[in-house]
């Protein structure tokens, strides 16, 4: 499908989704979110794609939502178009999703990055939730994903003050995996994705599911789910390949079967 607000480049086994509204610092309009959802749906179904990079390009990840579009809306307007609920498809993406964040990732932009599995940050990155300054709060997971990653007090600081954190602080907080020179961010995210694309896809999927489950359930449930996935993977060709390759001291080649 043709997209208006994003670019989708498939270089199997990876794909790159680039938010592409540079004039408005990649503001997350409902149309853009819809396109990201559709694109990720297609990439999830595409067996040649094994990992995806999500980026806003070299200058900015996404500086929040379209405020001009929201300023005069009512609660009912917002509920009816369920702007934030539509992001569920992004969080549910089953393959590894690597965010490449340069410059501002604010509000919805930050929440979008936090839905990814790994975050590579350029040294120019600034992540934050400035919604408080507009008389609202984050609406796409910010109040829930921040404390699960950085703890209550830093999350409170970020939510209540609206001040963003630098790439270096985000790294210290464990909010991003790596800080790199901004001109290299997308490239390094792509390499990370290519590296992941060599790994067994079903195991990646189960590992991702299991880790995400840790945020949703009590330990006993999470452990039970983990065990089931662990046993399940012994029914896959990739497990046989992986273990035999290990014993034969060669690199495994995985098919996702």
């Amino acid at each position, binding site marked *: 499908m043709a997209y208006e607000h994003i670019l989708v480049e498939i270089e199997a086994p990876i794909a790159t989704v680039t938010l592409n509204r540079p004039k408005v610092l990649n503001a997350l309009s409902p149309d853009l979110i819809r396109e990201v959802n559709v694109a990720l749906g297609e990439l999830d179904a595409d067996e040649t794609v094994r990992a995806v990079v999500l980026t806003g390009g070299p200058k900015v990840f996404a500086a929040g939502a379209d405020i001009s579009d929201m300023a005069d809306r009512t609660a009912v307007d917002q509920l009816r178009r369920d702007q934030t609920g539509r992001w569920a498809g992004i969080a549910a993406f089953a393959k590894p999703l690597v965010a490449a964040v340069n410059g501002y990732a604010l509000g919805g932009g930050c929440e979008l990055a936090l839905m990814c599995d790994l975050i590579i940050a350029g*040294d120019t990155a600034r992540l934050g939730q400035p919604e408080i300054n507009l008389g609202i709060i984050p609406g796409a997971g910010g109040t829930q994903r921040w404390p699960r990653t950085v703890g209550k007090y830093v999350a409170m600081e970020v939510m209540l003050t609206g001040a963003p954190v630098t790439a*270096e602080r985000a790294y210290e907080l464990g909010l991003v995996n790596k*800080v*790199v*020179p901004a001109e*290299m961010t997308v*490239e*390094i995210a792509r390499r990370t994705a290519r590296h992941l694309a060599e790994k067994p896809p079903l195991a990646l999927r189960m590992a991702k599911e299991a880790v995400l489950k840790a945020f949703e359930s009590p330990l006993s449930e999470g452990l039970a789910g983990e065990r089931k996935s662990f046993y399940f993977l012994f029914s896959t060709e990739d497990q046989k390949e992986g273990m035999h390759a290990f014993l034969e001291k060669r690199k495994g080649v995985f098919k996702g079967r």
Partner: protein
Amino acid sequence: MAAEVERQVRVETEGAVGWIRLNRPEKMNAIGAITRRQLGDAIKQAERDESVRVVVLTGSGRAFCSGADVTEMAQGGDGGMRTPEDVGNVLRNEYMPMLIRLRTMPKPVIAAMNGPAVGIGASYALACDIRIATPEAYILEAFVNIGLAPDGGVSWLLPRLAGTGVAYEMFFSGKPLSATDAHRLGVINRLVAADKLEAEVRELAGHLAAQPRQAMAAAKRAVNHALESSYEEALEFESYLQEAQAASSEFAEGVQTFLSKRVKK
């Protein structure tokens, strides 16, 4: 509206070198409210102006900078400094952005220390990338002498540049570190006689202005990153910067020039 605001900071561009000169010689270039604003503007402009490839910070007259204008502060005449909280706010809102800008702008910043650098004046000199001074110059952390603590980033800079022992002695004693001692410690890069200082700085700045711009910016970025990271993190960050640099036209041209020189031999 005042018809004309006194120019307490002069900005001159010579070729690709931007000279920022504190210009209150009668006050030993003390920094007051107007100076802060003008200096902030000058530093911001020097960072943004792409035609400026090297920045020099210096003073006019006998001093580099004698620090905050304490007389103005005491009289309550300094725009923002009436309460202790104002003092903190001026540091956070005015000095901090300027000093960070000096240390992070993607071009070399040279302090031409034509004379003493005292208090916040020392903070400016130490925030520059390179320091060249006359033997008559000195660095004085005078804060303790009026019952204040170090500010302007010297608690971070001075231990790194001179070691904690020297830094503590200066912070506790309120006595100056002479330019010759500072030179011996590596805090000052070169000592140059007063009448030759500007020529020497001009020559160095001119040389740097002709060096590959992006490669120098990358070096500054690497050092700033390394100062806040582990050895492993620094090595990895360098490797990515080097990839970006290896893909640049500067490197392509540099290699060509290098090879053509060898052929001529």
